[in-house]
């Protein structure tokens, strides 16, 4: 006689149904094969980046680039990881179509999407992102080459360089909440190194913008540099402060 006929069959069916229900409820939607999957380092790096685990992503991408230095797509991903760790909101930056044509200059537009009181580590990460992108040969960064990494690299360079200028400014001089303008006293405390950092970042953005992608933001950066140069003052610091005081950020 079949062991699953009669009352034994009913108990057996119930047991199977309960086992199936328990299995499904327990497992949910998690892929049960994950412990057994062998991910490549590149996949691990991308997964870490997507999960915003920037420390892990940076470590893995650095290792991958050492092994394959001409994989410039990895360099752009590494730069994204640095920028993410620096607190730059790349999604909002791009969604808001940063350009020099609004009432605010690009610094004012970008300032909304970067940390308002960045620390030194965040500024270092931004500088690292920019340095990595600048190290890509110009031919590999030329958007006309149609390589996806080229377009991304150049656009990221424009955005991160502008962001770096905005973050340095945010670190130097907090804005007065009522007016939205920079605190004049704190502007005076800017060091020459900080002034140079801001102007060099804007120059990097302007230079990268001439290649094509990020042209509007790059042009906006160039406009600021031109207006700063026109300001009265004996030093770059005086000119920059005079310019900032004419803007409502």
């Amino acid at each position, binding site marked *: 006689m*079949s062991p699953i006929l009669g009352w034994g069959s009913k108990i057996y069916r119930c047991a199977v149904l309960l086992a199936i229900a328990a299995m499904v409820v327990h497992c949910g939607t998690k*892929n*049960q094969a*994950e412990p057994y999957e062998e991910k490549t380092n590149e996949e691990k790096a*991308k997964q870490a980046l997507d999960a*915003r685990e920037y420390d892990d992503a940076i470590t893995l991408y650095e290792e991958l680039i050492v092994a394959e230095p001409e994989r410039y797509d990895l360099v752009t991903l590494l730069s994204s990881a640095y920028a993410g760790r620096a607190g730059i909101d790349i999604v909002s930056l791009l969604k808001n179509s940063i350009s020099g044509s609004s009432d605010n200059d690009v610094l004012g537009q970008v300032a909304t999407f970067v940390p308002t009181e960045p620390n030194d580590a965040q500024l270092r990460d931004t500088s690292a992102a920019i340095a990595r992108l600048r190290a890509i040969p110009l031919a590999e960064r030329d958007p006309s080459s149609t390589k*996806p990494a080229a377009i991304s690299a150049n656009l990221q360079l424009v955005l991160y360089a502008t962001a770096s200028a905005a973050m340095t400014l945010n670190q130097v001089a907090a804005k007065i909440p009522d007016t939205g303008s920079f605190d004049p006293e704190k502007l005076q405390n800017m060091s020459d190194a900080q002034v140079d950092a801001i102007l060099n970042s804007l120059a990097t953005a302007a230079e990268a913008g001439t290649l094509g992608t990020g042209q509007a933001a790059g042009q906006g950066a160039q406009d600021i540099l031109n207006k700063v140069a026109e300001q009265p003052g004996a030093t770059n610091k005086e000119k920059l402060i005079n310019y900032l005081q004419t803007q409502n950020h």
Partner: protein
Amino acid sequence: MLPFSNKPSVGRNNRILWLFGLLIGICPEQVYARKTVQPLYEEPFDLAAGGASLTRASLEGVLFANPALMPYGGKFHRWFGSQFSLWGNREIQSLLKASTKSSEAASAEGESSSDSGNDVVSKLFSTPFNAGVATALSYINSNFGLGIITKVSQDLEAKEYGATGLPTVTLEGEVYAGAVMSLATKVTRWFSLGVTAKYLYVSEPYTSFDLSQAEQISAMMNDPNEIRKQFEPQPGMGADVGMLFFFQGSTTDFRLAAKVDDVGDTQFGSDGVRFKQTVSGGLGLTFHGDVEALHLAVDYRDILNAYDEKPFKRIYTGAKLVIREMIGFAAGYYQGIPSAGVRLDLWLLHVGVTAYGRELGHYIGEKQRNLYVAYFGMGF
């Protein structure tokens, strides 16, 4: 009535074997299919059982899973009817709400369509969109099957970090339509062979924008014609060959299946999608009594790894419990992701729901979609 039950076969062995081969010529290297190792069409109850269908499949699913299944089932007439299924990912409701609210707000406040498009894009970063619909009309008996299917699905996702580090919106689609015809026979009492010839229209569009192309994204999302152009399908012909070893006992059956999909590759259009030839194998075990049957099965698809995919994407395993051929429960692991479903057969009408997951990416978690499928059909 649930067909393909595991009651002992009482039909006469049919020794006439018609070999029906439709092969296409070898074509230059083209775009590889995105569907990879999954059958072109999967019956929703089979999906609930983890997609393991080489050794047992439901209704029109047989024609796509393994035509050698047809001769086993106890009677000559197996199925004539139609089925309609609709699916969406579990988060789709919140995304549709956000889209509706954005459109209403844009109309009320006079925002541009670009702004409302941006709001939906924002929601896409946390909530991908995946939905589709499929229909099937089929006739199946012990030796012959004919099916007509259509299947359209669309996946839309935004990622903060795309392939090169910029935020990216990606639209993927699958459009399959066409007819399949299967022939099968028992070579011996425990071995059957089957072949399926298929004529299909296939399109698998893929479009990816980074957020610097905001105008392009808005234009795409506000103009359905733009999206329709991407889905224009191309025709192609191909064939599958399947075999089944079926060792039947009084209460326990054992099945071993093998199948070659897309013999010689199947090319769609001169520069369209190409389905690669794959070899798959499956094992099945059935415990059955007078009124119920428990099927356990595991498939390993694309044994030779023609699509170069990881093992987790090629393993499908699950169980089906069928009671009185009226109600069925199924559960399993589809590509390692839990699946489950229930189906009710009420003479001419059947209805069911299935919950399962599918990995659209190359590694676990890259692009997992958790889907609900609702389906109903009529037939006998």
